[in-house]
C-alpha cells in the first residue's frame, strides 16, 4: 500500500518536473502571462478614468475601488484561461505526439497524468498571479485589503475547482471537432460576459444571471474580490460562494472519474491512443 502511494508521488513529481522543464524552455510565454492581463486591464482602467473624469475628481475612492474590482476579475480570468489552455490541450498533444499510450501504460491512469500536469501548471500560474498582484500594487496603484484566512481558503478551493475544470476540459477537447472554436467559446469572450469579470453579474438579464450563477468562475471572482480587496460581503462569500465552489469541486471530481473510465474504455476498444 505504502509502496503504491510512494510510486504515485514519484510519478506525479516526474510529470510535474517534465512540464516545468517544457514551460521554462519558453520564458517569453511566462512573461506574457504577466504582461497580457495588464494590457487587457489598461483599457478598462482608462475607461473608468474617462467616465469618472466627467463626474467627480479622478482618483476618488470609488474609482480606485472600481479599478481594483476590474483588476481582480482580470486576474481570475487570466489564471483560468492559462490553466485551461495548458492542461486542456495536454492529453490531445500527448495523443498527437504518440506518447499517450506509453504514459498510460506506466501510470495505469490518465487522471494521474493530468494531475501531475496540474501541479506544475497551477504552481507556475500561482507564481504568475503573485507577480501580477505585485505589479498591480506597485505599477497600477491597485489597493489591497486582504483578509488572509478567507484568502487562503478561497485560493485553495479555487485552485482545486479550476484544476478539476481543466481536467474535464482536457477530456472534452480530446474528442471535440472544432477545438479552436470550443477553446475560444470556453475561455474567450463568453466568460468575461457571463462571470462578471469587469462588471457586476447583477447587471445581466435574469436568464443570464442564472447561467452566471452556475459557472464556478463567477463565484471565484466574487470570493477573491472580497478576500483581496474587501469588495462585497463576507456573509455572501461564506454562505453562497464558498459552499457553491465546494459543490462544484465534488461534482467535477466525480464527473472526471466517469470521463476517465469512458476515455480508457473507448481507447481500449477502438485502439485510438495514437490516432490524430
Amino acid at each position, binding site marked *: 500500500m505504502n509502496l503504491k502511494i510512494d510510486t504515485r508521488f514519484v510519478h506525479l513529481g516526474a510529470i510535474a518536473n517534465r512540464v516545468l522543464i517544457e514551460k521554462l524552455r519558453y520564458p517569453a510565454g511566462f512573461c506574457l502571462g504577466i504582461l497580457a492581463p495588464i494590457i487587457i486591464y489598461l483599457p478598462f482602467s482608462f475607461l473608468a478614468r*474617462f467616465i469618472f473624469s466627467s463626474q467627480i475628481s479622478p482618483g476618488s475612492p470609488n474609482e480606485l475601488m472600481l479599478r481594483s474590482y476590474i483588476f481582480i476579475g482580470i486576474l481570475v480570468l487570466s489564471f483560468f484561461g492559462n490553466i485551461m489552455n495548458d492542461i486542456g490541450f495536454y492529453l490531445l498533444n500527448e495523443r498527437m505526439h504518440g506518447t499517450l499510450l506509453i504514459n498510460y501504460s506506466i501510470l495505469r491512469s490518465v487522471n494521474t497524468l493530468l494531475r501531475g500536469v496540474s501541479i506544475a501548471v497551477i504552481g507556475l500560474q500561482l507564481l504568475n498571479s503573485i507577480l501580477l498582484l505585485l505589479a498591480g500594487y506597485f505599477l497600477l496603484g491597485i489597493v489591497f485589503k486582504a483578509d488572509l484566512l478567507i484568502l487562503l481558503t478561497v485560493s485553495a478551493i479555487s485552485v482545486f475547482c479550476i484544476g478539476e475544470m481543466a481536467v474535464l476540459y482536457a477530456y472534452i477537447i480530446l474528442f471535440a471537432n472544432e477545438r479552436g472554436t470550443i477553446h475560444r467559446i470556453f475561455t474567450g469572450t463568453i466568460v468575461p460576459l457571463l462571470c462578471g469579470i469587469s462588471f457586476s453579474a447583477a447587471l445581466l438579464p435574469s436568464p443570464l444571471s442564472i447561467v452566471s450563477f452556475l459557472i464556478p468562475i463567477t463565484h471565484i471572482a466574487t470570493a477573491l474580490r472580497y478576500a483581496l480587496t474587501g469588495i462585497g460581503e463576507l456573509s455572501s462569500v461564506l454562505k453562497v460562494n464558498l459552499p457553491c465552489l465546494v459543490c462544484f469541486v465534488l461534482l467535477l471530481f466525480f464527473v472526471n472519474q466517469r470521463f476517465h473510465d469512458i476515455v480508457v474504455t473507448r481507447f481500449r476498444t477502438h485502439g485510438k491512443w495514437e490516432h490524430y
Partner: protein
Amino acid sequence: MVNGNIIKTWTWALLAILRKDFLVSSKYPVSLLFSIFDTLISFITIILTARFIGLSSGTSPAAARTFESYILSGIVIYQFLDTVANGFAYSLIVEKNIGTIERNFTAPLPRFIFLVGMTLYDLGLSFVKIGILILGGKFLFGITFFGSHASCFLAFSMLFFMVLMSYGIGFWGAGTAVSSADPALSLFVLQKPLMVFCGVYYSIAVLPFLMQCVSLLFPITYAVDMFRFSISNHSTIILPQLELMIVVFGAIFMPICGYIRFKQLEQKYLHEGKLGQF
C-alpha cells in the same frame, strides 16, 4: 506597363484565394458563427462595464448614452485592425504550418496581390461584423449615430483609410509572426498595445502625459478620432484638417513600410531556408 490580361489574371488569382478562404471557413460553421458573434459579445461586455462604471460614478443616463456611442464608434473602426491584421497574419502562419507557404510564394503572381488576396475574406467579414455591431448597438442598447451626408462620406473615408493602415500593420505583423518562434506572442505584443494607446474606448486625454505623447505618434489614433468626429460630433484632438492630413499620410505610408518590412523578413528567411519549416 500593366496590360488587360495581367489585370484579369490578378483578379482571377484574388478571387481564387477568396474562394479558398470561403470554402475553408464554410467547412467550420461553428467557428464562422462564433467569430461573427464574438465581436458582439465583446461589445456587450464593454458596454455593461461602462454602465457599471457609470452607476458607480453617478453618471446620468443621458451622459451614459454618450459614452456608449463613443465606445461603439471606437470599436467599429478598430474592427478592421483586429480582423484584417490578425486574419492576415494567422493565414500566413497556417500556410507555414501546413507547408504550403513556400510553394504559394513561387506562383507567378506579385507577392502584393497574393497578400492582399489573403485579406479579402477577412475584410468582408469585418463589414459583416460592423453591421452586426451597429444593429446590436441600436436594438440592444438604443445607440444611434447621427450626421449629414458630408459626415457620412467622411466616416466612410476614415473606414477606407483604416483598412489601408490595417494592411500596414498586417504586413508588418505577418512578417514578424511568420519568422517568430511564437507567432501568437508576436501578434499580441504588436497589436494589443495599440488598443490602449489609440483611444478606442476613451479619449486619449485621460492617458498619462508620456502615454499621450506615444499615442499621438500613431495615425490610427487620428483615424479613430476623426471617425468619431464624423459620426457623433465629438470634438477632435487637434484641428480636423490636420488630423485628416495625418490620416491620409498614414494610409499611404504605413502599407508601404509594412510591405518593405515583410519583403525584408521574407528574403531573410528564404535565404536561410526557414520559410517552409515548422
